[in-house]
């Protein structure tokens, strides 16, 4: 059980690191939303599952699962809200290859 929890926690930390590196390395705003919307959510979910396994079968683990569901619903929505605001205020996206050139 402990080993399983450690595996979940470490993979969660790996995805959080990926999201952080993506936020710094990726070239424009819309690409960075991928780092926040996906990797961060999965990292948080895996970490919370691992911590719930480590905690054992008590009420605190159920609370951790409630946080998990909340994060899984709220994080994409918040990303969408910021992204939509950027689109409507006319932020241009970065492209590697312009069509026609």
């Amino acid at each position, binding site marked *: 059980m402990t080993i399983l929890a450690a595996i979940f926690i470490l993979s969660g930390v790996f995805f959080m690191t990926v999201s952080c590196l993506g936020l710094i390395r990726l070239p424009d705003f819309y690409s960075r939303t991928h780092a926040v919307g996906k990797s961060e959510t999965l990292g948080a979910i895996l970490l919370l599952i691992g911590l719930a396994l480590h905690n054992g079968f008590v009420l605190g683990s159920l609370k951790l699962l409630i946080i998990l569901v909340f994060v899984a619903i709220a994080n994409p929505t918040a990303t969408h809200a910021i992204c939509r605001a950027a689109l409507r205020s006319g932020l241009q996206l970065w*492209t590697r290859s312009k069509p026609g050139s």
Partner: protein
Amino acid sequence: MREERRTSEPQKASQRYGYRRLISVAFQFALLFGIWLIFSGRFGLKYLVMGLICVSLVTFLTNDLLYYRARPGGKAESGVLVEFMSWWRLLLYVPWLFLAIVKANLQVAYLVLHPRMPIDPVFLQFRTGLRKRLSQVTLANSITLTPGTVSVNLEEGRYTVHALVPRSGQDLVEGRMQNKVAEIFLDEQAEPPQVRFAHSLEELEP
């Protein structure tokens, strides 16, 4: 009163409405009370009575938030929780979604950790065949979480989606995820959507 027993068509409709509404209220009450028990963690009589009062108050205040028009212009009302009563189909959807999330994240990790970052961002636009608002929203959040794409905008069934590499929109082009969501909420199965690719804001439809 013998006449009253013969109910006319609108009365029947309103009775059915009342039945569904009652299910919605009961389901919400049970769910909120379960949440209260998990939070509270104390099972003395005092706390149970307090929980009953608080949960009844919240259910009374917010039930009509969860019970609303299913389609933007339509008349049929439906509840969020009534839609989720089909939880066994949801149970099949969630593991599939989780696997898709993990795959998408491995792809993003590959793109981010690659030294040259082989990305080619593009906007995708398509019109969905889904009619219910709840299924549209579920599809949008699933898009954000899964295949290398983030849903940027949703207006009247038309999605604007940002993808890191064009081929990661493959699931959307084939309409696979859309049909999965339609299965859960008993929505209309539709043809695979027409997808437009746009490389700048000017190419987007207004």
